[in-house]
């Protein structure tokens, strides 16, 4: 029996295991919308802006490990997904974004709501497709999901002209999928693993650097096992937080521009850096010529382009993080079973603990509400068990520094692209994936306003997302740059004119709380966390607090400004 393109699309999505579609309607996709009610297992979440749809799908994907899916219309619907696609592309998040398109015969004629979204999104997707014939639709959807979730994951866009969606053909589902031009390397080269094991045996000050790849490849258990068995101290990039429990004795915090003194000093001192699934972003390395100056570097990454892109490494390992770590541990077990790793590294770990005590992550209390204190209180009240989403700026760094991430997929944050407005919609996606977990957004007053319209989405779906606003009425991170690097010349960073966030929440049918004094902080946060409603907590924090440590852009990691 022949089926329409719309039918084939939805059947294909269900065969790929899709449960949720984040979407926004429009003329080019009405045939698909018309088909959706016939499939109640495919839930459509109506957002309030297409950017919100992509971030929500992204938050769903990060929290659950599944592919996030969006359905938007042509033209502006499609262009509004670009920031979300670029965000997911930078952080390697598996998404499939379906965009409507004008009928094939109108393409190129500047039709109403026509845009060349394939051209526009080529550099910010892993791959993209336009379906020009309904007979290739099922295969294209299959390929899109395969590409999104395999190898180094990423977003894939599929453009769907209206006539293709209306056209009919027999439905044929390709069970096997193989692309001659795409074969990611999962299994690492044995020789490289052996070299890594030998380097570990020869090292006296080894250090693990955990990146987002550890979380994406579900390598957290293997990594924790390796760290414990070989007694190796652990640090992480922003994307790697949660890949190793922050409660662990071997944990020394985040590295980089706002990394801990202990972690950055360890990078300067280590003689063997094991970088697992991180890509040496400039925010991580600081000045490249002074990065890990005493270290031999092992770099494990499934994407060969990450290796030697920024940092020269001595032992590259191309492969899946989990398989690589398990392989290294296997060799160490077989070859170096008699080594007293703990004894060997005791002095090195004592050094790190010394640095941690000497220069802990801290702040000066002065009776005002300190943003760091808000994160600490949140950490205590949630027991580190929440899914925490952030926007981008000072609050993001304080969350990374002061919240103890214990499990993978518990931090949702735009690490690579640094997208303000990401956190709230991402939290909506995560809450839909895990209706019974606590999902908390830590937002700045500036960045929250970039996607605040999604309040309606949260309320409409009765999602108990908690939004904690570290409200300093500034674009704080840029203000901090202006204070420290531009001699206090504040310009365009004062956000004094802002809505009453409590009233705004209430206007949408959500709950709003305000915290104005330090003694209100704990009880109000506790009350908000216990509420079954979508909740805003407007916390009036110290206005001109700075994030420390701070390595100015382009400086070496040992040139930290400290509290």
């Amino acid at each position: 029996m022949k089926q329409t393109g719309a039918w084939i699309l939805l059947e294909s999505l269900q065969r790929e295991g899709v449960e949720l579609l984040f979407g926004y309607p429009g003329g080019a996709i009405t045939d698909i919308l018309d088909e959706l009610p016939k499939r109640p297992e495919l839930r459509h979440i109506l957002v309030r802006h297409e950017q919100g749809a992509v971030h929500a799908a992204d938050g769903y994907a990060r929290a659950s490990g599944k592919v996030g899916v969006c359905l938007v219309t042509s033209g502006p619907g499609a262009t509004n997904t670009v920031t979300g696609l670029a965000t997911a592309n930078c952080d390697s998040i598996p998404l499939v974004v379906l965009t409507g398109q004008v009928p094939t015969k109108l393409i190129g004629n500047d039709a109403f709501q026509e845009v060349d979204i394939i051209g526009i999104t080529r550099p910010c997707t892993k791959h993209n497709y336009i379906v020009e014939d309904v007979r290739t639709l099922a295969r294209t959807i299959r390929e899109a999901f395969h590409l999104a979730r395999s190898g180094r994951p990423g977003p894939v866009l599929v453009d769907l002209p209206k006539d293709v969606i209306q056209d009919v053909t027999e439905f044929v589902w390709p069970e096997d999928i193989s692309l001659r031009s795409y074969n990611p390397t999962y299994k690492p080269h044995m020789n490289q693993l052996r070299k890594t094991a030998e380097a570990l045996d020869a090292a006296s000050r080894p250090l693990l650097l955990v990146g987002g790849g550890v979380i994406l490849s579900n390598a957290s258990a293997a990594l924790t096992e390796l760290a414990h068995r070989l007694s190796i101290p652990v640090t992480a990039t922003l994307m790697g937080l949660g890949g190793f429990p922050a409660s662990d004795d071997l944990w020394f915090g985040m590295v980089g521009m706002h990394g801990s003194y202990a972690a950055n000093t360890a990078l300067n001192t280590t003689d063997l850096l094991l970088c697992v699934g991180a890509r040496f972003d400039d925010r991580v390395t600081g000045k490249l010529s002074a990065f890990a100056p005493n270290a031999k570097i092992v770099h494990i990454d499934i994407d060969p382009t990450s290796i030697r892109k920024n940092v020269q490494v001595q032992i590259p390992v191309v492969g899946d993080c989990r398989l690589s770590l398990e392989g290294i541990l296997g060799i160490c077990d077989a070859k170096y079973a008699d080594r007293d790793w703990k004894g060997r590294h005791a002095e090195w770990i004592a050094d790190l603990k010394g640095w941690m005590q000497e220069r802990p992550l801290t702040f000066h209390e002065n009776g005002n509400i300190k943003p760091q204190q808000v994160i600490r209180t949140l950490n205590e009240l949630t027991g580190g068990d929440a899914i925490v989403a952030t926007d981008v700026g000072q609050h993001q760094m304080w969350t990374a520094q002061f919240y103890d991430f214990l499990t993978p997929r518990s931090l949702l944050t735009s690490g690579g692209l640094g997208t303000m407005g990401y956190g709230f919609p991402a939290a909506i996606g995560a809450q839909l994936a895990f209706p019974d977990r606590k999902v908390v957004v830590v937002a700045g007053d500036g960045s929250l306003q970039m996607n605040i319209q999604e309040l309606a989405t949260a309320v409409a779906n009765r999602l108990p997302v908690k939004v904690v606003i570290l409200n300093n009425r500034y674009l704080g991170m840029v203000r901090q740059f202006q204070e420290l690097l531009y001699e206090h010349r504040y310009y365009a960073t004062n956000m004094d004119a802002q809505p009453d966030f409590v009233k705004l929440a209430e206007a949408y049918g959500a709950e709003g709380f305000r915290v104005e004094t330090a003694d209100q902080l704990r009880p109000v946060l506790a009350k908000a966390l216990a509420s079954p409603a979508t909740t805003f907590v407007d916390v009036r924090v110290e206005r001109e607090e700075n994030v420390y440590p701070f390595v100015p852009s382009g400086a070496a990691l040992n040139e930290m400004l400290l509290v």
Partner: protein
Amino acid sequence: MKRHVISILMENEPGVLSRVCGLFSGRGFNIETINAGPSNEEGVHHMNITTFGDDYIIEQIMKQLNKVVSVIKATDYEDSPAVEREMMFLKVQAEAPDRGEILRTVEVFRCKVVDVSPNEMIIEATGNHEKLEAILTLFQRFGIKELARTGPLAMLRSKKKVN
């Protein structure tokens, strides 16, 4: 900075050229010449790109090219036994007193005259990069009015050993 000829086999799908060109421009790599056409296999196109870079840049270019989903295989022909040929058309100023010299030069380099007018000639030349550069230098003194080059085509030589 060395000149490299890169050969790319890719799926012949709409937009595949811009995937490759966009990669070069987006990452700040140079393209000196580019050409593309069908290969011996249906649905597969063969592209040649000439680029410049140090070892580090060329390594990134090759890795990035092979990462493009539509690229089946990208190969750097530097240090490989490959044949390389490029074609060009030269429109030269050819006034009567110069014609003899021009025709002699054409003969020496085994070029062809493909069009003649009262004071201009179009000359077709084929050769590797160095040969074409030499021809250009020699014709410069007559005055080159127009130049079109294909960029090199390249192919690995077959193994000469018989098993």
